[in-house]
């Protein structure tokens, strides 16, 4: 009996090869999207962990100097006094290749004798090429990543021109660095040198950046007591706590997108399976009448689902793997742009993701098959529902689904309004909103169709209302696919609005803050005036048509709570160029000018849970100093958090006259052409600085912004693709089910073109409905993303700008997807075998 049942199932798919292909494609794509995005996500996490492990190794603590560099005598003192045995001197500095200044590396100066204890991850390739003796003995020797050596065809002894601290230097390759532990490409961002080499290259004789430590709890206590004044002991992770938090936020965003893909994928699998079962409802009814047991039927359906699921899942895993490769690159590039100074490349994937993907594919397929199979198995032929009955119940079902939306929206609001301010919670709330949207979709469709019918009828006559009613009556078939499409489109619209809002806010912020006409930026952090000598600044000031200069000093500051960016500003003629979120701008600025406090950036305020009026402790060379927070300002430049102070106050407390940037203000709009060469010639050729116009900075900022959101774009397309498949599936099923109707129309004299057109109008309406319903849902989603998710993950607030473009794009996408999906079913409708379908009941 069972064999016969399987045979029947097999023949079904033989006769409907498209059905089989669609089912497999649907499941495979669902699995692929989940696997692909998870892979990207996992890579991001591992890349982050890996790069921090690479640099930190077994380091438990780091001793840094609040004022900047650490005198090497501190290292000598601590070691020879026996305070800390396991210590390694480190100098780290950004390094760029002279040939490709866009690529950043970390020049890590170490003492190779100390490295076994600290960074077993940093392991030169054994053999003469990586002679550590050469590294220690020969000036300017470095060990480069093997990948870089291969790329630039560097051999032992090759010279390499690099830029460090704004100067060009020539280093010599004495070996290559290979990561044996995890991945051959893991450390492509690290260039290793002896500590002496680093000092010489960076003109840092006598100083180191920090001391890496492996400490026992007792040693921590001892060191806290004995460490020299001005130094700060950080736990090795705390310096990166902000980074951790950030990458977590980034990853949660990614996870959410992958879950969304998953949701749409499950929708798709469900639609696919349930359709293939529903289509055989008559057969199943007959089988039941013939005495086939319920469980036999169920078992058979499940077996069929298992086979289908298995094939499709395998295909999905392969596809997902490919997809993952592409996404990983995008994710890492985003991470690189956002968070890392160095470029971290591919990481070998975690095998568990594939297992989860497989489980998802098989599980969802089985579950999706189970529900319709049970309904079908319960059906007794005598009461087998006519299509009309089914269609009537579709309306009832839409009401029922809409009723279900009531509890889900309640849950969503409760979670979002009353729940703890937590990112994960926010995402849970967001998903409930989406589910609510999905549940309301069928009823909304019914309403929309009722509203649209007179117009459509006017346009297309009775075949128009036929199309409209087809949409409503077919909801029992198309409801799930419609909901999937709606959710997908809502996501497209929501993310689109969010990005557009963000972009507008960024542009506004850039306009507010980039108030100088030209910017001179030093490539690196400099302790001294660097390229910005007094004489040069005076000369620039004296140029005709220069009204004034603003000065700034940007530096990283290690605090016990993590690293922060300290920005000291001496304003130019157009004011401070600050965009206030909280605090009275005038009052705050006048206090700032009188050195009475600091401003903090929004992410900083969010992360440290501080606000206007609070005191902020900052380490200065003369110990911890409390600053009152005068206000919170918008800062999209860094999401690690920044603190703004007046340059005078900074010089007073930190005893540092260094400058990293100079803003040049024109008296009257002067042509950049004439003034730029003048500034260039004043600055001279021997120094490293960048001269950028206001416009260039804006353009570059937006380019980076757009790149950052590229991954989001890709996921939107994926979601749409899944939704498209869902619709295609639903329409194919619809077309098959309504064959008799179409045959009747053809017999009544409707031409093939007319019935095709009817199908098209219908799919168009479906798409349009999904698109229209997606608009409010998408706006709600965008609001959640802007006001809840982004604030909770980055601490950034932004203007909420509902632009027409993302909405129109979303609706267009929905209609296009539906019409594309309708192409094949409509064509089939035209070629339908009329006789065969006229006679069936």
């Amino acid at each position: 009996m069972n064999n016969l049942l399987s045979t029947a199932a097999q023949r079904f798919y033989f006769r409907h090869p498209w059905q089989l292909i669609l089912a497999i494609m649907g499941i495979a794509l669902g699995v692929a999207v989940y696997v692909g995005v998870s892979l990207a996500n996992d890579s991001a996490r591992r890349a982050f962990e890996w790069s921090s492990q690479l640099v930190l190794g077994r380091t438990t603590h780091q001793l840094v100097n609040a004022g900047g560099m650490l005198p090497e005598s501190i290292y000598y003192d601590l070691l020879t006094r026996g305070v800390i045995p396991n210590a390694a001197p480190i100098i780290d500095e950004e390094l760029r290749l002279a040939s490709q200044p866009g690529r950043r590396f970390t020049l890590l100066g170490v003492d190779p004798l100390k490295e076994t204890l600290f960074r077993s991850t940093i392991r030169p390739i054994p053999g003469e090429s990586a002679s550590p003796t050469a590294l220690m003995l020969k000036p300017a020797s470095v060990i480069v990543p093997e990948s870089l050596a291969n790329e630039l065809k560097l051999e032992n002894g090759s010279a390499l021109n690099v830029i460090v601290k704004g100067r060009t230097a020539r280093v010599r390759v004495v070996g290559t660095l290979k990561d044996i532990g995890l991945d051959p490409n893991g450390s492509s961002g690290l260039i290793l040198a002896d500590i002496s080499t680093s000092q010489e290259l960076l003109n840092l004789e006598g100083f180191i950046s920090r001391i890496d430590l492996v400490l026992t709890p007792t040693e921590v206590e001892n060191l806290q007591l004995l460490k020299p004044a001005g130094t700060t002991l950080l736990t090795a992770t705390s310096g990166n706590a902000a980074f951790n938090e950030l990458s977590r936020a980034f990853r949660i965003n990614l996870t959410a997108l992958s879950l969304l893909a998953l949701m749409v994928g499950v929708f798709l699998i469900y639609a696919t399976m349930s359709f293939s079962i529903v289509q055989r409802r008559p057969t199943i009814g007959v089988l039941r009448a013939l005495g086939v047991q319920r469980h036999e039927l169920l078992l058979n359906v499940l077996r069929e689902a298992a086979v289908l699921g298995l094939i499709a899942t395998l295909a999905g895993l392969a596809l997902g793997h490919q997809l993952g490769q592409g996404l990983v690159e995008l994710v890492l590039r985003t991470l690189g742009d956002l968070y890392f100074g160095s470029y971290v490349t591919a990481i070998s994937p975690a095998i568990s993701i594939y297992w989860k993907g497989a489980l998802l594919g098989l599980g969802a397929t089985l579950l999706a098959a189970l529900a319709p199979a049970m309904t079908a198995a319960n059906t007794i032929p005598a009461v087998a529902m006519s299509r009309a009955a089914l269609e009537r119940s579709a309306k009832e079902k839409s009401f029922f689904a809409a009723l279900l939306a009531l509890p889900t929206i309640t849950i969503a609001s409760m979670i979002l309004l009353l729940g703890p301010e937590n990112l994960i919670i926010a995402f849970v709330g967001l998903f409930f909103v989406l589910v609510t949207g999905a549940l309301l979709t069928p009823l909304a469709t019914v309403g929309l169709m009722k509203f649209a019918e007179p117009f459509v009828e006017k346009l297309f006559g009775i075949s128009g209302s036929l199309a409209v009613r087809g949409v409503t009556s077919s909801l029992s078939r198309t409801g799930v696919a419609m909901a999937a499409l709606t959710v997908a489109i809502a996501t497209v619209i929501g993310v689109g609005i969010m990005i557009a809002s963000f972009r507008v806010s960024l542009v506004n912020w850039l306009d507010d803050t980039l108030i100088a006409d030209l910017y001179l930026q030093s490539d690196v952090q400099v302790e001294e005036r660097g390229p910005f000598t007094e004489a040069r600044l005076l000369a620039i000031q004296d140029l005709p048509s220069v009204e004034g200069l603003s000065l700034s000093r940007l530096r990283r500051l290690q605090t016990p709570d993590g690293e922060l960016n300290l920005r000291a500003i001496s304003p130019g003629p157009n004011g401070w160029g600050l965009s206030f979120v909280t605090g009275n701008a005038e009052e705050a600025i006048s206090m700032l000018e009188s050195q009475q406090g600091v401003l903090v950036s929004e992410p900083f305020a969010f992360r440290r849970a501080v606000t206007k009026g609070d005191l902020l402790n900052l380490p200065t060379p003369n110990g911890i100093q409390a600053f009152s927070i005068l206000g919170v300002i918008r800062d999209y430049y860094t999401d690690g958090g920044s603190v703004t102070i007046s340059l005078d106050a900074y010089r007073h407390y930190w005893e540092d006259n260094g400058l990293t940037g100079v803003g040049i203000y024109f008296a009257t709009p002067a042509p950049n052409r004439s003034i730029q060469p003048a500034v260039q010639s004043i600055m001279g050729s021997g120094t490293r600085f960048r001269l950028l116009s206001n416009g260039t900075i804006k353009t570059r900022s937006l380019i980076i912004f757009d790149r950052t959101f590229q991954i989001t774009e890709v996921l939107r397309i994926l979601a749409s693709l899944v939704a498209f498949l869902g619709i295609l599936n639903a329409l194919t099923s619809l077309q098959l089910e309504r064959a008799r109707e179409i045959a009747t129309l053809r017999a009544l004299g409707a031409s093939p073109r007319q019935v095709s057109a009817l199908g098209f109008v219908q799919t168009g309406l479906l798409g349009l409905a999904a698109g229209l319903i997606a608009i409010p849902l998408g706006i709600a989603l965008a609001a959640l993303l802007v006001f809840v998710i982004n604030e909770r993950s980055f601490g950034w607030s932004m203007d909420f700008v509902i632009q027409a473009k993302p909405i129109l794009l979303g609706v267009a996408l929905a209609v296009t997807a539906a019409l594309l999906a309708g192409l094949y079913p409509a064509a089939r409708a035209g070629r339908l075998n009329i006789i065969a379908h006229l006679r069936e009941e």
Partner: protein
Amino acid sequence: MARAWITIVLVGICACTERAELTPDDTARLPATRFLSEVTGNNGYARVLYPKKFQFPQDHGSHPEYRTEWWYFTGNLEGARARHYGFELTFFRYALKADEAEGTSAWRTNQAWMAHFALTDTQGNKFFADERLSREAIGLAGNQRAPFRVWVEDWSATSEGTEFLPIHLKAGNENAKLDLTLVSSKPPIANGDRGMDRKGPGTGNASYYYSMTRLQTVGFIQVGSSKEMVSGFTWMDREWGTNTLSDDLEGWDWFSVQLSDNTELMYYRLRHRDGSTSPYSGGSIVDATGSYRPLSADAVLLTALDHWKSPNSARTYPVAWKLEVPDEDLILEIEPYLLQQELNLTVRYWEGAIRAIGTRQLQPVDGSGYLELAGY
């Protein structure tokens, strides 16, 4: 004696090879082959080619023109109620190249240093071992002639005045510490052929080698939080050279014994890869007055009596021996105070306090000393 291998290990460390991945063979072979490869040219280093008359205090100080050099203190001490301790404190200097490094950074140097510290608490059944590695830069490690001082970070041997003795030894970590003063001694002995100790057939396969065989020692030992006053005898080995070892060696067993009749004995057996004893093995024997004579390879008969397999490294060491010097009619049975005296440091080897019991001309004699087992 020939503990040159340890200094060679520095090369291994510099190569940043992780210790967990070093198989026993690697430790024994990598340094030896590297050593040999550099025998052909001496790369500008001075070599040990002729006997030498040691000049003190100058020769206590370092000889940076040679590739390797060490100060090697081992001793057996007694605390209250005859509580026994053994200790090892060693300072190794290794030149990365013959001439000085150039550069403006104070970290630029051609000399690297390593120190090992081990403490055996026999009654407590505890063994502590630790190491320090630093370069000879910004004062982290080095040697100073007057007053004499050799140090690596916080571990040091420092003379009180312009004379070598008395000298303070200070080393340890959170768990165990020593603070000892070596007060007086028999005069130094020149090992081998008037201080030149040949260890292989090749030119320069030799070291300058002198020992101070019985240094009266007093001071403090601290294990955990309990500090104890101790006294006893220390042995100091001083050795330097370039390309000291020949290539065909697998390892060595080094014995030093301070006997109750106020005599001392030192013997090292160099083992070939095939297990045979190298003819360049040898030692010295010192009588109660301080007179000494060298021992040739065949003057001493060694029989392993017992082995111990380390649970940490799974290596098996011959830790108990019968040592016979037929010329002297001396028969000693040697056993370790503790079995677990394996140093689990950058390189693993076994070096520990030993007790000796036997007869000299049929008269009972006993004593303590140190045994080093390398290349297992």
